[in-house]
């Protein structure tokens, strides 16, 4: 781990102990088996809020601690390890980042305290098709006197059923694919004309399709300046990708630990299977990928905290490299565990399903590879 302050070391230890004790993977399994649409246990979310995690990015004057992304990452990684499900990432990281990046004083005053206290769940409503592509935003934001009217559909909205507010990317001008003409709007989830439908996914977390039909909103709902919202949206997405990569690193690292443990205990042919060189070399390759993924994630978190101009490329780098590790690790987790790995009773399947959902969220490897190449000028 990067060199941590005393406070960060404490937070990391606290998060590690709490997650294992109060929100382990068996808790996520229970959530799945409950078939709840909410996607999290309220008491687990409340405990996170009580520990101050929901306010880590929120400035002190709004009830947060303003400790930054590296600190947030220490927690997300532990949550990723046990597949702990909560609105922490979607609201306290992505939602808070959006308000901090684009919100005016009034918008920040009205929502940041709620994000910190857990009473508001603010999530980004962006994707409209099966592929992540911010430029292809088509949801219409038409002028309507002093305000706007939203028409269109968002899909795969994380915490979409539980959200109290959406940050909606919408088009005020141009057509899908244009760089210009996109704006962000802050919309209450209970606004007239919004219909949300739960999307059951392999991961059992809360994802929703959200339909906007003639949703009338005032000008004050505009987040940032009109029509040139893409750069600020990209900045929010960079932070989202870096946070998500941190959670993914935790998920994959736990898969690695489970696999390594199995290699040391499972016996076949009269020997511990980890003594077979073919398996030892695969473990070595996974370990190398894990260490390199960690380097990318930590550097990306530090880049955001430092306000470095490399944040966009670091975000795509982290998402891609951790994505590569998680993809391979989640497959190897099952393969190396053999028959038991395929059973629902064993946890490997939960990790595989989570892996694929997170890999696709906020752009898959192909998306970020392309973006990285663009940022590097080719």
């Amino acid at each position: 781990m990067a060199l941590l302050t005393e406070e960060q070391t404490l937070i990391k230890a606290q998060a590690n102990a709490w997650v294992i004790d109060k929100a382990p993977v068996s808790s996520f399994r229970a959530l799945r088996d409950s078939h709840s649409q909410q996607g999290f246990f309220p008491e687990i979310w409340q405990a996170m809020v009580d520990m101050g995690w929901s306010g880590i990015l929120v400035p002190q004057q709004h009830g947060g601690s303003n400790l930054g992304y590296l600190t947030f990452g220490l927690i997300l990684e532990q949550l990723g390890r046990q597949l702990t499900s909560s609105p922490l990432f979607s609201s306290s990281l992505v939602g808070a980042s959006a308000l901090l990046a684009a919100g005016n004083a009034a918008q920040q005053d009205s929502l940041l305290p709620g994000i910190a206290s857990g009473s508001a769940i603010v999530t980004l409503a962006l994707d409209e098709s099966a592929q992540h592509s911010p430029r292809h935003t088509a949801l219409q934001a038409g002028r309507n006197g002093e305000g706007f009217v939203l028409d269109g559909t968002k899909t795969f909205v994380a915490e979409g059923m539980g959200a109290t507010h959406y940050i909606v990317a919408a088009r005020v001008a141009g057509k899908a694919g244009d760089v210009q003409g996109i704006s962000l709007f802050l919309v209450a989830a209970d606004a007239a004309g919004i219909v949300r439908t739960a999307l059951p996914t392999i991961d059992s977390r809360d994802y929703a399709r959200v339909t906007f039909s003639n949703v009338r909103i005032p000008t004050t709902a505009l987040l940032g300046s009109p029509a040139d919202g893409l750069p600020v949206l990209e900045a929010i997405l960079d932070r989202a990708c870096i946070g998500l990569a941190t959670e993914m690193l935790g998920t994959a690292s736990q898969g690695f630990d489970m696999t390594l443990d199995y290699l040391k205990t499972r016996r076949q042919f009269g020997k511990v299977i980890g003594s077979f060189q073919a398996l030892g070399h695969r473990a070595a390759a996974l370990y190398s990928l894990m260490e390199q993924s960690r380097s990318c994630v930590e550097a990306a978190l530090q880049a955001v905290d430092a306000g470095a101009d490399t944040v966009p490329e670091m975000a795509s780098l982290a998402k891609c490299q951790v994505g590569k590790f998680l993809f391979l690790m989640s497959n190897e987790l099952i393969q190396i565990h053999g028959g038991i790995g395929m059973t629902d009773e064993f946890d490997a399947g939960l990790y595989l399903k989570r892996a694929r959902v997170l890999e696709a969220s906020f752009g898959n490897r192909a998306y970020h590879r392309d973006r990285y190449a663009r940022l590097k000028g080719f």
Partner: protein
Amino acid sequence: MTGEFEAKVRDWVADNLPQALVGAHIDMYGVASDDQQVKDAFGLWRARLAAQGWGAPTWPREYGGAGLTDAEAKIVNRAIARAGSMNPIPYLSGMGVTMVGPTLLEYGTPEQKARHLPGMASGEVRWCLGLSEPNAGSDLASLTTSAELDEQGWVLNGQKAWTSGADKSQWCGVLVRTDRNAAKRDGISFLMLEMDQPGIETRPIRLIAGESPFCETFFTNARARKDDLLGKLNDGWSVVKRLLQHERQSQTNTPVTSTSAEPLQDIARRYRGTGADGMLADADLRSRLADHLMDAAAHELTIARIITDARGGNVEVSATASILKNSATDVAQTRAELMVEIMGNQGLGWEPGEYTEEEARAVREWLGGKSMSIYGGSYEVQKNIISKNILGLPETTQKG
């Protein structure tokens, strides 16, 4: 404090680096120039660095170093690089400054240190290493070159392979069998001997890339002084394990791609052209190039992280050296393959003439780079080290 030191170093470099040397290509044999003025400048620069103790800056002053910390040594090397040159002494000392020296500092007697270290630190004595043999490559411990003690000292017989720079070195560190009856790792010792003697013959090895620094080295009643045994008798295996850790570290602590080299994506644009959007026209090449650049970035960020962590005292650097050796290899070999692919038929030339210097060099570097996954413990040996020493997996079942 650091700023003050940095300023002093910068001033010293500005005052002492001969202008004639700036930008000159320096390699393991010195400066590649026929210009006498450049050659003289090179000699002067070496002598000045040596007098300053900066040839091996972290070594104690009494042995020719400057007693600097690793961080300070980095500042020195960076300042020299910024001024447009480099510290040639580690090159000139062969395996001295990077491998034999650090091991001597740990295992040597005070007399051995005083006798051998200053020559390495000044770049005046070049060292080679006799480790591998024709039948002892990845399985190094099965080596058979022997040493026996008589009244005048050690008598060596046998053959070493891949002794890099043996034909140009004054001294050699050699791994020999000193007890044939012991288990294979327990009968090995590490000796140091002079190369200029009748009992030693060297023959350069020609590689797929053409000429190479590698040699075969034959010992026929070659002599070493009795007190040139490094470490304890029959404990050479622990000496060499340490030595190889130093090797892995020296190979991996430097970034793979030099920052002065033209970025690969620019070479690709130049050779392959771009579409209307300014993006590389070949989409398949573009995505593989992006993957490669990201792997290279991940590798360099890992080096940076390990250095930071080591400074904070929370990781054992040697444990991670094997990861870095393999990722450095992956990155460098992939880069070389992409480079010749980008050049197309122009990346297939052997004799110069029809090809640019850049193209000819790319071909040689690609072929030469095949050695990276073989020397210094092969790719597979590194994976064994990771799985056993770092991950704690049990010993592989086949024992040789």
